[in-house]
């Protein structure tokens, strides 16, 4: 990466604009409506049940809301009556049929709420229905085919509502791009180190050092944002999760780089040894981040049965902010590297002469 580009004013404006977009777009866009909590979550068949539902980000109005219990792709059950208690709470009455159409003993059903103002939102596997064999087969309510049709669609699309994550889903714009940017910076650092040991130019060495330093800061920020996120979703600041611990070790490898850097008095020797270690550290880090986490289960998306980054977790509305965020953090990293590099060069000149 040429530093000439980073010094240009358009590059700085581009970074600032992109960052403003990421912060404003990422923070101000609301979440889609979703079902936050409901009770009861387990009922018997053949009973009339009242399901109290708390929703998120909705404007429910009496008479505009319908509920459905969806059994499978074919059968569903419409609600008998809906009482709206407020913009985000309501009670849905269902008469659960005595038997299942396919003769199951029990089943999970999905709750679908259709509201004219908010559109349609669902909670998969919301309620567990057990077959109550003592109930006689009544006429009346039955699982019906093809009743879920013409559902209302919301006019404005927000970020997806996910259980547990809720509003913290926005952290995906800060936590994940920080790691992307860190890895890009470390790779350029290793490349600059390689250039230094081949051509022995002091500039390459200072660049390599600056890239490593900013990459290290980004790593610390990545750990901090992840830690805050983990407190909200998993309940603790630090877990035994394999990815956390492997990244912590990767940070140790790079922390050792800075100790090594400061342990030399001779500039020439320091340059060679530190560049060599920087390349070695980069290669040693690759199994830590890309190989070992694959061997163990992890709470992170993409591991242990959790959906991956490319799957349904990163939907198109998130992508519109996520990819600009990756570019924005990388540009910010390059900018910081440029400043660190200038500072290192000035220090070097002042101390050298």
């Amino acid at each position: 990466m040429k530093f000439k580009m980073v010094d240009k004013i358009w590059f700085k404006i581009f970074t600032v604009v992109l960052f403003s977009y990421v912060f404003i777009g990422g923070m101000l866009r609301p979440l889609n409506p979703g079902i936050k909590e409901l009770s009861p979550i387990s009922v018997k068949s053949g009973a009339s049940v009242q399901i109290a539902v708390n929703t998120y980000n909705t404007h429910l109005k009496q008479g505009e809301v319908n509920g459905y219990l969806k059994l499978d792709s074919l059968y569903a059950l419409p609600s008998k009556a809906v009482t709206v208690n407020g913009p985000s709470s309501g009670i849905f009455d269902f008469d659960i049929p005595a038997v299942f159409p396919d003769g199951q003993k029990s089943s999970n059903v999905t709750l679908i709420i259709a509201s004219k103002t908010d559109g349609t939102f669902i909670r998969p596997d919301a309620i567990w229905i057990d077959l109550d064999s003592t109930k006689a087969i009544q006429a009346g309510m039955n699982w019906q085919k093809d009743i879920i049709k013409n559902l209302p669609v919301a006019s404005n699309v927000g970020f997806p509502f996910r259980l547990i994550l809720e509003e913290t889903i926005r952290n995906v714009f800060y936590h994940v791009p920080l790691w992307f940017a860190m890895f890009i910076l470390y790779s350029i650092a290793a490349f600059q180190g390689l250039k230094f040991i081949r051509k022995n130019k002091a500039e390459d060495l200072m660049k390599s050092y600056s890239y490593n330093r900013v990459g290290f800061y980004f790593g610390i920020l990545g750990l901090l944002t992840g830690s805050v996120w983990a407190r909200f979703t998993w309940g603790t600041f630090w877990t035994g999760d394999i990815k956390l611990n492997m990244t912590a070790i990767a940070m140790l490898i790079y922390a050792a780089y800075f100790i090594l850097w400061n342990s030399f008095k001779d500039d020439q020797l320091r340059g060679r040894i530190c560049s060599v270690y920087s390349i070695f550290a980069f290669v040693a880090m690759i199994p830590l981040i890309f190989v070992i986490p694959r061997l163990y289960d992890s709470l992170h998306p993409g591991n242990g049965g959790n959906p991956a980054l490319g799957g349904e977790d990163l939907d198109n509305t998130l992508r519109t902010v996520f990819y600009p965020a990756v570019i924005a953090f990388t540009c910010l990293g390059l900018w910081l590297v440029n400043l660190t590099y200038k500072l290192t060069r000035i220090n070097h000149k002042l101390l050298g002469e």
Partner: protein
Amino acid sequence: MNKYITLIRKDLLIEFRNSFSISSVLLYVFATVYIIYTSFFNIKGKEWNTLFWIVFLFISVNALIRTFNQEHGNRNLYYYQLVSANHIYITKLIYNTFILVILSLIEYLFFIIFAGNVVRDLSLFLSCLLLASVGFATVFTFVAAIGSKSGNNQLMTAILGFPCIIPILLVILKISANALGLMQDTDLSSDILILISIDVILIGISLLLFPYLWRE
């Protein structure tokens, strides 16, 4: 080829003429295992596995930290005229791997005596020892070379080496748990393959980088 044999012979001769160093490492192995035995008394499967490899980690640091102690100053210059840098590195690597294999077998023997033998699959465990020795020797030889260039050899080797060794150590712990019958891994062969590839990558990168490290 002749150069390699001569260099390894030289290292072996230095090691055995100076019987202090080899016996000190042996005593270190014995003392560590004995301390663990007296503090645990009854070492079962999982503890056996963990303790074995942690002891092995410390043994290898202590044994390999002195790798480049003799190669400094004028003698370094002398070697540099005679052979290429990679000659030195490869011989040191082979020699250190050899030392680590011997030490790990001795450690295993001490563990059998004091803690009992819990290994179910001996061939798997022995191949584990071999692969671990290669990986540990690669990392610590390279890091000892870096350390010998900086002022504070002992401390620097430990600081730089420990984080770099963890990927190997984690894979080793998993494979070794299989050899001990603690867990049944469905894709054991891919784990072994990963370990071999980490070893190969580290050897490759250190061969590429060592000449730059060595140049004065």
